[in-house]
């Protein structure tokens, strides 16, 4: 009954896998090319080029090579412990420069801690810290949104010249529609999972993957999975009564949705017209799944990136679920009325 849709999913995942394979290959090439010439090596090289810098190489009892760069003129002291495949730990001590609040930032597995004292700043960089699983989910969400956009017109594709096959199957239109939506949803989930696997593989090419699981990671994962599904449902609802031109809807959906989100979040000015435009787009943005796709993060207790508020995440999950169901129902209702 859904064989054609399975073939579409298979073909799409095959293309996705080919792209991923190319990315893995590229990562391997980069790893080999920059094995002794990475950003940290460049930093050391730059520091060493300063004639005032004194460089000392030692080996720690566990065998870890340590490089110490000391520049008495700049009052900069850098200690680099090279753990090889397990990354580097870099401690930079330099004079204070006005800013006096402690910071903690994380980009993927790179953790940066900045500690201020009265006269100096100590920055500790750990290049192989834990990566909260929500980081992988965020990447997977983005890729799945692309897959959802490509898949987002299953009924329009049938209506574009194949209704005589589709509507003469021994199954009700509702059951057929639900089966198609289910198959596509599985395809999106498969693409999501594949992306996470590939992200871990690519990371492991450069360093040991260390997974972190914060208190909100599960909620983040759920929301990162529901977002592409809700987006898919929206596109299906928009295209399910179309026989032509559905590609334009798929192509324009992203820019339109992003413009709506942007206009809903910024205030152009304080004039009544600008306020009215803002309010209008704010209302429209509530039914735009991409509005709930902000991945603004902060660092959790274990150092992983998570959404700021778990209550916010829970609300997003509820809203995305409702949007997914409503758009799915709208799509099925329109499909029931399609004529060849």
């Amino acid at each position, binding site marked *: 009954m859904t064989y*054609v849709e399975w*073939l579409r999913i298979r*073909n799409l995942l095959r293309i996705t896998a080919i792209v991923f394979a190319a990315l893995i290959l590229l990562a391997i090439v980069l790893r080999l090319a920059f094995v002794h010439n990475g950003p940290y090596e460049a930093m050391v090289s730059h520091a060493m080029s300063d004639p005032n810098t004194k460089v000392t190489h030692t080996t720690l009892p566990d065998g870890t090579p340590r490089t110490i760069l000391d520049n008495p003129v700049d009052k900069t002291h850098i200690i680099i412990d090279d753990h090889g495949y397990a990354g580097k730990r870099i401690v930079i001590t330099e004079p204070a420069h006005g800013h006096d609040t402690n910071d903690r930032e994380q980009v993927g597995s790179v953790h940066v801690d900045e500690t201020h004292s009265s006269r100096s700043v100590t920055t500790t960089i750990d290049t192989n810290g834990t990566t909260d699983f929500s980081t992988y989910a965020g990447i997977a969400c983005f890729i799945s949104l692309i897959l959802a956009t490509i898949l987002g017109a299953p009924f329009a594709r049938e209506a574009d010249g194949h209704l005589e*096959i589709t509507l*003469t*199957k*021994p199954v009700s*239109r509702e059951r057929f529609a639900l089966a198609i939506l289910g198959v596509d949803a599985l395809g999106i989930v498969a693409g999501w999972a594949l992306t996470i696997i590939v992200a871990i593989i690519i990371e492991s090419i450069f360093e040991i993957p260390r997974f972190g699981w914060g208190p909100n990671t599960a909620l983040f994962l759920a929301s990162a999975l529901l977002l592409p599904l809700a987006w898919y449902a929206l596109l299906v609802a928009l295209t399910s009564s179309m026989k032509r031109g559905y590609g334009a809807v798929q192509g324009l959906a992203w820019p339109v949705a992003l413009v709506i989100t942007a206009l809903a979040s910024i205030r152009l000015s304080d004039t009544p017209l600008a306020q009215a435009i803002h309010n209008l787009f704010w209302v429209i943005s509530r039914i735009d799944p991409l509005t709930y796709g902000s991945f603004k993060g902060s660092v959790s207790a274990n150092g992983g990136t998570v959404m700021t508020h778990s209550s916010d995440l829970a609300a997003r999950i509820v809203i995305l679920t409702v949007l997914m169901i409503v758009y799915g129902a709208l799509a099925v209702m329109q499909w029931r*009325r399609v*004529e060849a």
Partner: protein
Amino acid sequence: MSTVSIERLRKVYGPFVAVDDLTLTIPSGTVFGLIGPNGAGKTTTFKCMLDLARPTAGTVRYDGVPLQPQAFETIAYVPERSVLYDWMTVAEHIEMQRRTYKAFSPARALELLEEFQIDPKKRARSLSKGMRTATMVALAFAREASLLILDEPTSGLDPINQRSVLNLMINEAARGTTIVFSSHQIGQVERAAERIAIIDRGRIVLEGEVDDLKAGRKIIEGIFPDESWSLDGLDSDRRVARIDRNGRIVRLLSTDAAGDLAARMESLGAVAVRIVDLNLEDIFLYAVSPANETAVVVEETRS
């Protein structure tokens, strides 16, 4: 399965009436030909029969009950244009049918494709129009359906494959399958169909057994010495379905007693009179062709 009963079917697209008050019964086990000019409403009728288009009014019943989705296990449809998925191979279409219909026989489909000389490994996009039609025919005939609805099933086929499709239809009919088909090739309809309906501008203008229609209708052709001949009541004779006049030549389409009408034409002064048997093409053309200015047309419905 399946006596198909269509009652007062009407389908309107905006201001355009595609099918208008169409009533038709297709008995189980018959080969039924639906013929008509382009845009007459044949395809729309098929679509309404299959619930591909929702009738504006009227009903379609199969053995007395409205069409249910499960009935498609035993109803096969070949549309007039290709509905194959361009990006799929023919073999994948076979697999699609196998997964969809319990009675579908992949072996039979492959056998028919071989007969039509179609390579199952080919993608649909690489097939010619005729090969696509043949593929759809093969997929439909491999289903062992009890009702086959074929819209122009020989469209684009070469004469050899046209003959193959006709033979398939005749063989299926011999198994008791009900076949409803349309074609512009009147000769094929005449060869395969037991009953026909002629549809024009959405309405059935003639319907019946092919043999009956042919047996009951004759053309009486008379040549008069000049153009001043008089009808003298012929236009109101209930046995005359139509009168066409072309200068000195007059052609009467009779529904009965052709001999009497020929004698009457002679008595009106015709110098030469002959009675011609009609073939289905003549019947079709008389049923759907608009009258020319000089013709005197007696409505077919009168007979």
